[in-house]
């Protein structure tokens, strides 16, 4: 199994009720597999994704949905930024 950390930002925090989620996923799990699993576990995530373009970063970088997760990865889910004014 691969141990990863999921970081939720902005309104995504309310999907799970906290900032972080620690998960173990099977070897070979892709980013797409992970998002699908999160949608399955948290149905409000799917509703949010219908209305807002979700940004997914792995260790702060954009990755393709085919990216295979490795031990220690931090996957961050966030809406488009709202910084500035």
């Amino acid at each position: 199994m691969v141990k990863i950390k999921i970081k939720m930002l902005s309104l995504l925090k309310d999907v799970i009720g906290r900032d972080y989620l620690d998960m173990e996923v099977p070897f070979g799990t892709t980013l797409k597999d992970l998002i699908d699993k999160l949608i399955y576990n948290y149905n409000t995530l799917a509703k949010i994704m219908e209305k807002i373009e979700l940004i997914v970063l792995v260790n702060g970088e954009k990755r393709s949905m085919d990216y295979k997760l490795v031990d220690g990865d931090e996957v961050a889910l966030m809406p488009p930024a709202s910084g500035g004014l």
Partner: protein
Amino acid sequence: MVIEAKIIEGKVDVNKIVKELMEESSSLGGGALVSFIGFVKGKVNEHIVKELVYEAYMPYALKKLEEIVYEEASRTGIISIKVYHRIGRIEPGEPTIYIFVTAISRKIAFDTASRVLERVKHEVPIFKLERRDDGEYWVVGDGKRVKRVRGKGKVM
């Protein structure tokens, strides 16, 4: 060249920064300084705003902010760029972001300050929650507001 990019909780001394930048830039051929300060609105959609709560995805937010400032500072005619983005709870009328640009001409300074602002707003993972008299709203992207409902899985 003077470059600085910071994510901070407090405020900065605007007068001090302007004075220092003008002094430092003038000997390097600078003759224009543009400063921009974004501040919290006290009213949105006819509702009173109590405060904004800014959060940054660190350390990546700072990394991206530095990347933008370095890229923009490398353009011809730019002498210095300083950007400070505040996080935490900020009340109406209080500053949220400061941008200072000095350049060899006003056009370059204005254009660069504007471009830096737009890039920060769209590229740096900083998010805000708007607390107002009719509830709490997550502000996402270009001003879209999503009402917050407390409790696990209760968004929207």
